[in-house]
């Protein structure tokens, strides 16, 4: 651990202890995300928190080695830090400490190795490394995420008893996107979610009805990549908790029913000294063009991280919303990357590939990695797509349509390996190949619209 970090933690220690005492906190939830985007952690007492403020809190290395069925992921070479279940350590970020509920606090953290170096595959550390790389080039990223989820009338207990199938969308099945006259139960749920966001300091902009039955979208306020990702992780936990309180259930599964999928669109701009460098009077700025160049060059490989699960790929259907081609266009939502141009504040890129089931820390890190590659190598983008980028007869490369093809694309992506690090890329690819094997050999069915295996595995987590 760097001296600066140690000093920062030491300085924060008294503030943390004061916080706990002043609010009579008896339980602190330590939070992080694993590769599947699930919220992982432990609940500790105040004295335990005190003892681990500098040294961190031990987790077995399988915190990054268990699949969603609770089996160890095998089939690939592990990096040096993996062994016979040695410990890795979660160190808290005191700046994220909040009073979650009466008597309970929560705090986010990231993972470190016993020798004090950051765990290379930890999502939060990876994101930090990408923002530091971007900063070394003289840029800051400003990001915003659109969280999509589907809410069902039934409680999670009923959902479990039905194996997450044949559930009733909250707000009914009739309608379309942006419908504000949904039944009161839908409205009450979202109002309660927004109130909890306000209580916890999770800044939100907009919430609305989305395209599929029961589907909602929440837009968090734009900010630094780390703060937005931390808010994303907590926002989803809020949505689960409120659903539970109201006797409903919510899922961030990529495609929880045959009707429609759900995404995590990421909006991003690059700034320097408060100036949006994606802006110029007309069209994409030179910086935006290089960013797009990097994103297009790395999109096939990035797919594996943006679409992390088997069901993720079931979203890739033309005319239903998600992109199916490696493409970009100004104001063109049929492409993978939409460029919004001509505004000094709002000029930005919208990456439309990531699914609702993706780990936003990893997605953001990967997108930044693509942009960094574009800036570093001064990559020019391919031609802008002005047509509808769906149902095309030819000409545009397809987004890898399966988990296995996406993993192969990532394993061959030199730019992402160079920027994200070969260790993370190899590890990630290994875990996806394990997931692919589990699906096919342990009960998944590729021939149906959505197999029971997928519902059981992906509905509650991530």
């Amino acid at each position, binding site marked *: 651990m760097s001296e600066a970090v140690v000093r920062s933690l030491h300085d924060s220690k008294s503030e943390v202890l004061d916080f706990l005492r002043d609010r009579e906190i008896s339980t602190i939830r330590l939070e992080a995300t694993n590769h599947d985007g699930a919220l992982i952690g432990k609940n500790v007492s105040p004295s335990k928190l005190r003892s681990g403020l500098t040294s961190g809190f031990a987790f077995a290395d399988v915190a990054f080695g268990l699949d969603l069925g609770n089996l160890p992921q*095998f089939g690939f070479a592990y990096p040096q830090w993996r062994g016979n279940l040695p410990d890795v350590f979660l160190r808290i970020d005191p700046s994220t400490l909040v009073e979650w509920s009466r008597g309970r606090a929560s705090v986010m953290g990231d993972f470190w190795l016993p020798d004090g170096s950051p765990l290379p595959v930890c999502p939060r550390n990876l994101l930090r490394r990408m923002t530091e790389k971007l900063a070394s080039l003289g840029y800051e990223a400003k990001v915003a995420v659109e969280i999509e989820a589907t809410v069902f009338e039934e409680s999670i207990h009923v959902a479990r008893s039905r194996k997450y199938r044949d559930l009733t969308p909250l707000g009914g099945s009739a309608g379309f996107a942006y419908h504000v006259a949904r039944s009161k139960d839908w409205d009450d749920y979202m109002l309660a979610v927004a109130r909890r966001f306000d209580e916890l300091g999770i800044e939100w902009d907009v919430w609305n009805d989305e395209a599929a039955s029961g589907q909602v979208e929440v837009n968090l306020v734009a900010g630094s990549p780390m703060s937005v990702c931390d808010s994303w992780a907590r926002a989803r936990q809020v949505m689960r908790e409120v659903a539970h309180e109201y006797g409903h259930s919510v899922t961030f599964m990529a495609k929880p029913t045959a009707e429609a999928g759900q995404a995590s669109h990421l909006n991003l701009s690059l700034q320097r000294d408060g100036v949006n460098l994606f802006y110029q009077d007309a069209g994409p700025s030179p910086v935006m063009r290089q960013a797009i160049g990097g994103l297009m060059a790395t999109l096939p490989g990035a797919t594996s991280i943006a679409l992390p699960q088997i069901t993720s790929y079931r979203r890739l259907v033309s005319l239903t919303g998600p992109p199916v081609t490696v493409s970009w266009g100004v104001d063109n939502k049929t492409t993978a990357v939409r460029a919004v141009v001509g505004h000094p504040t709002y000029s930005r890129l919208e990456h439309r590939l990531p699914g609702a089931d993706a780990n936003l820390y990893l997605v953001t890190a990967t997108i930044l990695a693509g942009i960094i590659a574009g800036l570093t190598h001064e990559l020019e983008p391919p031609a802008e797509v002005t047509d509808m980028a769906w149902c095309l007869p030819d000409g545009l490369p397809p987004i890898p349509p399966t988990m296995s093809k996406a993993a192969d694309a990532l394993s061959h992506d030199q730019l992402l390996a160079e920027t994200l690090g070969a260790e993370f890329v190899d590890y990630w690819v290994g875990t996806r190949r394990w997931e692919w094997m589990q699906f096919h050999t342990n009960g998944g069915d590729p021939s149906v619209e959505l197999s029971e295996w997928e519902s059981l595995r992906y509905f509650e987590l991530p």
Partner: protein
Amino acid sequence: MSSNVTSPSGGVTVHCDDDAPPVVRLVARTLRDAARDPELVSVLGRIKGRVSLRSHNTPQRATIDFGGREVAVLAGAVGPDELSLTVDLDDRFGVEGIDEAHHTLGDQVLAVLRPRLPDWRQAAETFWASTRNLPGMPAQLICICKSADSCQEITLGSGDSRYSIAGSAESLARVFSGADDLLTKVLAGSVEVRGTLPQLSVMTGASWKVRYDV
């Protein structure tokens, strides 16, 4: 269909898609092994027609189009077939029975799907040759054949890192030839291993390579 085509063995070429699921890869790999067997290649070359396979305990399905010197293995159930078999993918395509009307075709298909197991030593050497350079593989693989009254051992490779696999002659032959999945057999207790957890991960991947050619 983009094809995963290996060089013809004994004049028979087995095709499958580059992005094929495990069951297709398993069948294709098994048929390529049969094509290398002097006794089976002629059987393989004579089979004509479409045979569909389904797993007895998972939704996995494959279709084999036998066309003499060209065999295609496809994912799923593809069109009408001459014969449909329900097989145990974890027991060398074991079937419960074949109806009398399809006995000849069925016997031929099962013969090529269940080629003779090699001797456990030969299987181990072939396994080692095709997997020793995979990232993370141990420098030395020790294979221990245990029977009621004896214990034989061979050591493949050399170096500091070691991994041991022990079992009966048949168990070892099945795992090393790809007929069985190593991890499945370790969990079932059919083979025993000595090494680290990371090594088990790498060896699982090595087993997939020989079993599924992936």
